[in-house]
């Protein structure tokens, strides 16, 4: 089990639960969709995995780190192993595209040469080479989203959390991105992707976790879906 939610609830405001008693297990190497309407709690669930939010009750275990015992100084280590594509991109506005992607390798202390090679690889995969020296405010919304994806992919994470990664790209671009995700999933990365894009979810034989009002309403196994496709 690479991710395990045990009886997790999250209370932002009194008397109202953004997450309510979530129990969920995700295996190593899995590809799972997180489906649910606006405000269902998808982003909150992902935030709890990368420990940006702490659960109000319950315990989450990610890669042997437990929310109950993890120390502040271990969180960066966890986050280096978990790539996150943020719903609002969270690009560093004072760095260009190249440096934004490079940053998530720089924090690990990787060698300059290695960083350069990897970043250029990712830029090529995402067809962003020609934008590499532009700043976030100088590129289009879709391009920004791709940079956010690049930053998560470049560090070859154990776990990839993708929060609505195709919201700002055209259908063709979405397909390319999904192909990239499938690729790295095939290489062993566990992927959890929150999305509204039913077309994508329907076209792929992966596990679908449905949420509503902070609760898990359905959990359809990938194998079963494969059969039904």
């Amino acid at each position, binding site marked *: 089990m690479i991710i395990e939610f045990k009886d997790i609830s999250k209370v932002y405001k009194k008397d109202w639960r953004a997450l309510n008693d979530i129990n969920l297990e995700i295996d190593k190497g899995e590809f799972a969709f997180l489906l649910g309407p606006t405000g269902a709690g998808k982003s909150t669930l992902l935030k709890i995995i990368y420990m940006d939010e702490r659960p109000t009750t319950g315990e989450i275990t990610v890669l042997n780190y437990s929310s109950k015992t993890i120390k502040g100084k271990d969180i*960066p280590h966890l986050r280096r192993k978990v790539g996150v594509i943020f719903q609002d991109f*969270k690009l*560093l506005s004072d760095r260009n595209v190249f440096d934004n992607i490079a940053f998530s390798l720089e924090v690990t202390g990787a060698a300059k040469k290695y960083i350069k090679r990897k970043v250029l690889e990712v830029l090529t995969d995402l067809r962003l080479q020609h934008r590499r020296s532009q700043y976030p405010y100088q590129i289009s919304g879709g391009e920004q989203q791709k940079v956010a994806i690049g930053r998560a992919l470049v560090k070859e994470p154990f776990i990839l959390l993708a929060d609505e990664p195709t919201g700002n790209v055209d259908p063709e671009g979405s397909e390319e991105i999904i192909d990239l995700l499938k690729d790295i999933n095939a290489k062993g990365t566990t992927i959890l992707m929150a999305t509204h894009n039913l077309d994508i979810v329907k076209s792929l034989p992966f596990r679908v976790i449905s949420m509503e009002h902070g609760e898990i309403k359905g959990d359809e196994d990938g194998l079963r879906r494969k059969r039904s496709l």
Partner: protein
Amino acid sequence: MGYAVNEAFRSFKERKTTTFLTIGVTTASLFIIGLFLLVTVNLLEIIDIFKTRVEITAFLKDDMDKENIEKLQKEILTIGGVEEIVFISKEKAMEEFSKELQDTPELLSAIKTNPLPASFRIKLEDRFKTKEAVAKISSMIENMLGVEEVRYGEKTVERLQKIITGGVILDLILGIALGLASIFVVSNTIKLTLITRGDAIEIMKLVGAKSGFIRRPFLLEGFFYGLFGGFFASCVLFGLYKLVTIKFHGIIFPVKELVGGIVIFGCVLGYIGSAISIRKFLKM
């Protein structure tokens, strides 16, 4: 380390306005501190000048011959704290007195004989120019053979000491107040520059950067703010000094100490200011 330096300079380049403003504030603060130090140095110098006025006069008995006088002089010189001793003969004393009274010749002409005694004028080392030390040395001299009376302007020494103590205490209070104000200003300003980058720091944490990794460029940045601020403050101060010395001579400007002091203080201030300000942002 290379990364941190790069980052600090990237930050300067990307945020020219912020950098300019922060260095400006640092410059102004360090300038104020420098100005204060300059005034203090010159104040101490003035105190030193006043201190040269402290001296002991030992009036001699009228029956002393040359030999006795020389013996006494040697004896006095052995006292710890005595720096210099000058003999003033009866004639010399009258001469000086006449000069003082030259404005009132009526008075002078009324004096027929020379009533003034011979005396020693005794200069002390600076650190013996306190009320207590002067009094002690005086009484030691007073007890020597051939000394009629010792005078050292008890009131003057006392007043001088009061003024010096008062001045130094006031100066210290002022200095502490100004120093605290400057430290407060610089660290607040650095904190403000950090607030403009709170989002970036948040993102860095989310991407897996360790506190130290995030902190280092900021510390360097703070250091450089201090370095440049100190440098510019020194320049402004020196310019001001040059301007003032056109009219006022004798002002001291200990270049090495003052510039060195300001720059080093600036660097430490910037570094520590950054270190303190960033803590809040780095809590996990």
